């Protein structure tokens, strides 16, 4: 009798016929359970990550289309149309920050550099909204190039659940940062939009990737997370930035980060880190 531990016996997982395959699979699942593995977990999170990828691709492609529209409207001297396109482009961008901050920090920097009057969204914002100018062809072309690269990267980059949980945590922490100076999109006055889209991005990533697994293991964790996200949504669902209560928002975001960090072991993930190269 072969007493090799089933977990160390790859041959056992290579059946030659369907019936044999099925029986071996059943045994393998049982052995895996005996070994302390959690069959289906990785697949669930990975499935969730792939589902999230389809949303991410849609958001990034929408952003890219809006920036192309921005460039063409600016070239036509259509100031109002260019402004509208810039605002629309920010929606998908801010929602996808869960991915960009964790997986492509160099593109994140080139697309959303701050402060920077030469490249990225905010260089265009300054001219477009501050000076009512549309002569930013170079900046718009650069942004199109970088977003095209991002569009390719969201399709090809392996999406690890760990990286995506890191991304949610980083975005949640950032959401609680002071906007006393008007925030990042202060010239266009759309920092509040950024915040709302950030919360949407956090919600999308949690629900798509992690919620099902968390719920199956400890329903209260998922309930608590959803409640926290709803609370954040309510906090930024106000008419103007100055009506956001910064103290409550800071507390809520930090408590959400703590909850996400506490949830990591439940998801068989490491404690999420708060900066890109920190692990």
């Amino acid at each position, binding site marked *: 009798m072969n007493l090799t531990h089933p977990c160390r016996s790859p041959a056992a997982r290579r059946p030659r016929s369907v019936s044999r395959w099925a029986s071996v699979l059943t045994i393998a699942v049982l052995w895996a359970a005996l070994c302390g593995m959690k069959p289906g977990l990785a697949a669930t999170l990975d499935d969730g990550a792939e589902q999230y990828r389809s949303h991410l691709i849609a958001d990034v492609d929408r952003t890219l289309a809006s920036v192309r529209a921005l460039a063409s409207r600016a070239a036509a001297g259509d100031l109002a149309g260019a402004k509208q396109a810039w605002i629309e482009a920010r929606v998908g961008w801010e929602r996808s920050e869960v991915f960009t901050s964790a997986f492509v*920090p*160099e593109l*994140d*920097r080139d697309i*959303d*550099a*701050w*402060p*920077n*009057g030469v*490249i990225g969204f*905010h*260089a265009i*914002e*300054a*001219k477009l*909204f*501050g*000076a009512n100018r549309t002569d930013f062809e170079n900046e718009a072309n650069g942004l199109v190039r970088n977003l095209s690269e991002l569009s390719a990267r969201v399709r090809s980059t392996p999406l690890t659940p760990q990286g995506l949980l890191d991304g949610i945590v980083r975005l949640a*922490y950032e959401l*609680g*940062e*002071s*906007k*006393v*100076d*008007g*925030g990042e999109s*202060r*010239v266009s*006055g759309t*920092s*509040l939009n950024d915040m709302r889209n950030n919360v949407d991005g956090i919600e999308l990533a949690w629900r798509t990737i992690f919620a099902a697994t968390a719920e199956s293991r400890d329903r209260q964790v998922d309930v608590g997370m959803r409640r926290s996200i709803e609370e954040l949504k309510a906090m930024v669902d106000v008419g*103007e*930035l*100055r009506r956001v*209560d*910064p*103290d409550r928002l*800071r*507390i809520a975001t*930090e*408590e959400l*980060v*703590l909850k996400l*960090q506490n949830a990591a072991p439940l998801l068989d993930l490491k404690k999420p*880190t*708060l*900066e*890109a*190269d*920190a692990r």
Partner: protein
Amino acid sequence: MRLGMIAAIIIVLLGAKLRVGNAFPLSGDQNVLPPGTELNEEALDKPRELFRSEALGGAKSYLVNLGDLAFNSNLILGGPARRAGMSCGTCHVNGAGNGKLYIPGMSTRPGNFDTTGPLFNPKAHNNARDPVRIPSLRGARFLAPYGNDGRIASLRDFVRNVVVNEFDGPEPSPAILDAIVAYIEDIDFLPNLNLTAGGRLGARANDAQRRGEALFFKPFPHNPELSCAACHIPSSGFVDHRQHSVGSGGLFKTPTLINANFNTPYFHDGRYDTYDQVVGHFDRTFELGLLSQDRADLVAYLQATGDGLMPYERDGVTAQLKEINDFASVLDAAIPAQNNDVIALAVHTISGELRDLVEQFPGVKDTTVEGGVAERLAARTALKNLVLMVRLIGVDAAAGRYDGAAAEYQNYRKLTFAAVPIVVKKAQPWSLFNPAVHKAHFDELRKLLQSAQKLP
């Protein structure tokens, strides 16, 4: 003795050289404070804060640290000030003044502020544009009565009035009021090597300063019962604790001249920038008949009396972490005492200070900083982790899990004792505490806002 004197002079020179102005106005128009508001929070050089308790060789008490914490917390205030993240310390930086603070609609010039204006507490609005100079609080325990017009005898009552009436804050608890008063009363004047213990010029004085001192004591020609020294009594901290009319539109209390070189602008409403303008005002108002040499001598004397040792210090990791640690020390007592009010105040204020410190280390999206990426990210990570540890203390305490809060606080203390300071100091060369990095960052921000026509 001579070496000590040389060292002191070097320190004074260093202090003078260190002072760097780095004002940067708020530029967004969606924020609580009006566009163009200047809080001067980006300044690299901060007024030096000298505590009596530490100068005497001891440590600040729990009460003083709690007062310092409350003084620097926006939770003490209400309305727009609280939402804008302002605190007592916004105007009184390290217990001194803030000669650059300017809030459109509330200030008529940098360094003054209408405490009864419409922005911070509409109920206190008196429908008059009557800003007052932001005073230094150094030596405040010697300077009663309080308020520029000396209308309030007690510092405690004055503090309450500022918090509740001027800044729409909630009624402070007696313990918090006591603590703020203890903190303010612990702030000392900066030592002045020019003056003797009785407030007279010492051996270092030059001829011009001595001539100025003589004029300072000289009776006014048309009012011989008056002299500068009759109100600014040198042996009494250069004050007489009384109000006077000096031709500036009302009765105002005599301000001290100690450390006044660093308390510009001058007069109750901050109308004057220089001693020469002040002397000119008295010359005109009281018909002193001063010659130009007399004015110059009086100015030289005022500069000598208004001096102070090392008035500014360069902001940096060490100073910031020390202040945060002093704030955190209140948890030594508050957690065992299960004092949730103080724990909540500490958690909120410390986590806010730590978040501000994180932003001194530019992240990867800041293209103005070259190099030190790993160091910066390590510093940001370490500080953000502290933010979360502090928040966890608050969460545990609010849920009545004081053992958990105490354990987390011990972890926090261990990290802040050595590990975090090492990581953070290592990143300091690439932080906004480095003048070159600071300049590059704010030059780029200025350029961006200029292209947006938000700045001239």
